[in-house]
């Protein structure tokens, strides 16, 4: 033996025992620790004069499952996995090799126990197992025969335990391997692959799974297994499908809508501009409408107004501009789009009123024609009164001449002249009415019309002792209206009111009150008198043509003309009257129905 081997022997004897990275302890038959190395002391702390169960497990007595005592008996070495407590009192997992020391006589005085701490390894292993089982997707491990080697808990919950089965048989109900099997691809090229698989669950239901196959290799070496991770996307796919259908449906609806639909996002960029909107705004098919173009089409103020409102802003009648700068009468509704109170943009709904306007015009025209027809029928009635007057005159003239009654002749002549005058007045009014004068809209101050009319009648009223007044309480904004037309309306009403006062029983002190005011976004004219009032029969016929109670003093066209003009302004005329008490006529002109003030070329084109 040379020196170095001697030295090695000494080192093994003196040093190795302590240097081994594994706890070594020697136990006698009474469970006393008789010897232990440094690694053991590092793990379990002080050991001298202590019992093994006390050191390993912090117990006061022998462990019920003591394996050492068995090895003392049978002399067989054992390996066991144990849980004990380390020197700091923490739970520790360790693998213990128990080796009996057998003497020549066969007796066993000691056991040598070698302990390896596996607490951390075990921890990691458990974590992995937990992850493997509880991760929210199905995981299986498949070998090159496509046999399922292992599956996690989640997979077992969905498919049952498939271990040992061929994956395509067990999951896909197939006899052959699936065409686009990602695991197969992974086995071929060693790379990760994804795919979509339709599978049958253990409850018999079909489901869509998104599958990803990963090679189960370490350090890129040859591998025999693939890990397949799959997620049930049935619900997602269904939602996606529903969303797609809803989206398509919405797109079709928007495109097919008769009304123009425009939507802008938070940055006011145009996102939707449907076919109807293109027609209304004269936008070519391939033209993309920009932000600034939209601002010139729909006024910027309106867009601002909508974005500051919580819900809708509606303009029943307004004008927008086409891309090439032409005015269009439309109904415009702006909706502030909010999702969970977050501003998403604005949607506009635009209804083209051109056709409606045309229809309205046609309706007015047909009403006018109907009125003309009625007029012709009524004409006979009007003419009858005139003929009566003429006949009377003729009779007086003839009989006066026969009787040489010069007074009667004179009277007859006067009657003839008077009635011929009435005929010309009648014909003039009749022509005005039947022609249907064109409405001339200009920005007017509503109360000015009433002022003018009252001034016109002031002298007249004073002469017959009627107090005629005009009041205008609140300031009224100017409005687009046919000044002359409205003047005619009020002239008729005030004239009627003065006549009603003259016909009344009161000898004097009658009143005519003219009032102009604005209420509920409508301009209102009231003409009230405390004159004779009307009885039932008269009230019923007030608005029919050629109805007059004034004998030859009226043509019966005044109120009818008034009604026509008011209707042309989109307004209404109503009347309350009580016999002997007085009458009140009320013209109401809602601002949103007033004629549009535009020098529209198209409008001119359509009017003869």
């Amino acid at each position, binding site marked *: 033996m040379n020196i170095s081997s001697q030295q090695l022997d000494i080192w093994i004897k003196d040093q190795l025992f302590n240097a081994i990275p594994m706890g070594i302890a020697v136990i006698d038959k009474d469970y006393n620790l008789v010897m232990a190395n440094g690694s053991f002391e590092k793990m379990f702390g002080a050991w001298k004069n202590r019992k093994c169960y006390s050191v390993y497990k912090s117990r006061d007595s022998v462990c019920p499952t003591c394996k050492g005592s068995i090895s003392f008996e049978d002399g067989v070495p054992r390996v066991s996995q144990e849980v004990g407590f380390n020197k700091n009192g923490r739970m520790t997992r360790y693998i213990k090799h128990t080796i009996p020391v057998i003497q020549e006589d066969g007796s066993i005085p000691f056991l040598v126990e070698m302990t390896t701490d596996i607490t951390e390894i075990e921890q990691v292993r458990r974590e992995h197992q937990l992850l493997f089982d509880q991760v929210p997707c199905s995981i299986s491990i498949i070998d090159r025969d496509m046999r399922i080697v292992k599956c996690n808990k989640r997979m077992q919950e969905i498919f049952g335990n498939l271990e040992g089965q061929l994956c395509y048989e067990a999951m896909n109900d197939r006899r052959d391997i699936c065409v686009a099997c990602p695991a197969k691809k992974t086995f071929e090229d060693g790379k990760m692959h994804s795919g979509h698989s339709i599978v049958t669950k253990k409850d018999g239901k079909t489901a869509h799974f998104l599958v990803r196959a990963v090679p189960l290799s370490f350090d890129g070496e040859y591998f025999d297994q693939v890990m397949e991770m799959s997620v049930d996307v049935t619900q997602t796919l269904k939602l996606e499908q529903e969303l797609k259908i809803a989206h398509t449906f919405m797109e079709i609806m928007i495109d097919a809508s008769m009304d123009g639909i425009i939507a802008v996002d938070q940055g006011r960029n145009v996102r939707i501009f449907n076919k109807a909107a293109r027609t209304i705004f004269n936008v070519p098919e391939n033209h993309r409408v920009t932000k600034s173009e939209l601002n010139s089409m729909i006024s910027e103020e309106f867009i601002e107004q909508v974005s500051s409102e919580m819900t809708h802003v509606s303009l029943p009648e307004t004008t927008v501009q086409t891309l090439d700068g032409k005015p269009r009468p439309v109904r415009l509704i702006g909706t502030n789009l909010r999702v969970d109170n977050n501003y998403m943009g604005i949607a506009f709904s635009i209804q083209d009123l051109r056709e409606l306007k045309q229809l309205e015009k046609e309706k007015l025209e047909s009403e006018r024609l109907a009125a003309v027809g009625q007029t012709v029928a009524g004409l006979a009635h*009007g003419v009858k009164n005139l003929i*009566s007057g003429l*006949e009377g005159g003729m009779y007086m003239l003839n009989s006066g001449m026969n009787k040489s009654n010069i007074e009667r002749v004179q009277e007859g002549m006067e009657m003839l002249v008077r009635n011929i005058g009435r005929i010309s007045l009648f014909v003039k009014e009749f022509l005005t009415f039947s022609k249907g004068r064109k409405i001339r809209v200009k920005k007017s101050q509503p109360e000015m019309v009433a002022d003018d009319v009252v001034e016109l009648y002031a002298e007249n009223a004073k002469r017959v002792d009627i107090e005629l007044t005009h009041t205008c309480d609140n300031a009224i904004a100017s409005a687009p209206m046919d000044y002359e037309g409205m003047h005619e309306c009020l002239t008729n009403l005030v004239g009627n009111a003065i006549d009603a006062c003259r016909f009344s029983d009161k000898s004097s002190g009658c009143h005519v009150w003219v009032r102009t005011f604005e209420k509920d976004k409508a301009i209102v004219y009231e003409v009230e008198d405390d004159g*004779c009032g009307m*009885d039932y029969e008269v009230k019923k016929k007030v608005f029919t043509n050629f109805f007059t*109670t004034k*004998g030859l003093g009226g043509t019966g066209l005044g109120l009818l003309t008034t009604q026509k003009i008011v209707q042309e302004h989109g307004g209404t005329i109503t009347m309350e009257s009580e016999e002997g008490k007085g009458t009140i006529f009320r013209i109401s002109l809602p601002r949103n129905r007033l004629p549009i003030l535009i020098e529209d070329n198209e409008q001119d084109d359509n009017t003869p």
Partner: protein
Amino acid sequence: MSKKIVIIDDEPDICTYLTAALEDYGFNSQSVHDHQSFMPTIESVQPDLIILDIMMPGRSGISMYKELKNHKTYPSVAVIMMSGMSAENEFSPEGVRNLLHDASIPLPEGFLEKPIQIPELIQMINDILSKE
């Protein structure tokens, strides 16, 4: 003694015309232009027949007719209603019946459409008065 007739029409020309014509045919006639003097005139004249226009300002002939028929003294006085309206325009027995709104009131004895034909009017007056 000549029969007395009261003409009620707001139109003076018609009144003048009818008064003159009726006088020429031997009737004693008087006219009223307004509804205020209608009852006093009837009271003072005590007419055998009344010619009554329907459409008049302030008060219609229908309303005057009702007053007359409800009066204690004059319900039996014959009335000819006169109007510029034609049959299509409610000037018919049915139309007047509707306007009256009262089934207990008898219809007037005559209906006369304007323009007035004097011979026709005289015929109507004579027929009505001879029946009585």
